[in-house]
């Protein structure tokens, strides 16, 4: 696609429920990144994919968080048993393999856990 697409744009969920956040990167971008932006904070790195593999999962905050990428394209970030502290904007970005020119970001999913 022309840009990085994320869905849903906003999600309100009850504490304890599972949620899935979707990211559709720019066609041809082999690298995909997930970040979390909490209120008043910078962007916290969660996970990186190169193709379908995730060589760096170091940023996932707990085992309730998981992510996958299929076909080297769409990625899904899943949060199980959501907690109120999971409320944040989840941003996805993609890049060509050599990302010296930075990433292209989507508009994010605002997750609110009530």
């Amino acid at each position, binding site marked *: 696609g022309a840009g990085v697409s994320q869905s849903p744009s906003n999600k309100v969920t009850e504490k304890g429920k599972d949620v899935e956040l979707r990211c559709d990167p720019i066609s041809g971008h*082999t*690298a995909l*990144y997930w*970040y979390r932006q909490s209120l*008043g*904070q*910078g*962007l916290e*790195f969660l996970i*990186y994919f*190169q193709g379908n593999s995730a*060589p*760096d999962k170091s*940023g996932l905050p707990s085992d309730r968080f998981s992510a996958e990428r299929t076909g080297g394209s769409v990625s899904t970030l899943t949060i199980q048993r959501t907690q109120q502290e999971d409320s944040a*904007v989840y*941003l996805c*970005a993609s*890049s*060509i*393999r*050599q*990302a*010296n*020119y*930075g*990433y*292209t*970001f*989507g*508009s*994010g999913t*605002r997750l609110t856990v009530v």
Partner: protein
Amino acid sequence: AQTVTQSQPEMSVQEAETVTLSCTYDTSESDYYLFWYKQPPSRQMILVIRQEAYKQQNATENRFSVNFQKAAKSFSLKISDSQLGDAAMYFCAYRSGIGNQAGTALIFGKGTTLSVSS
């Protein structure tokens, strides 16, 4: 580990004036890249300007320029002739150049909220 610090949570500027946003970083690497991103209320992060550490010349993109001081590990953003549309949150980011691979994540500061008044 590398860190990025933006010491100004909020800044304000009048239209047509110039404003400088500060950013410092900590690294032991000599090869890296620095970025400024703008995040308007739409939430989408927009790349404003980038700097390669091996280049001494400061990057410039129209009204946006940087003052890159490698020895001081400082990377400030200057916005000239400020416009109402410049109002946004601005993030400074660092990327290691080691391996020149896409997998090296961007490390972000906490951002500076810029307001522009007419």
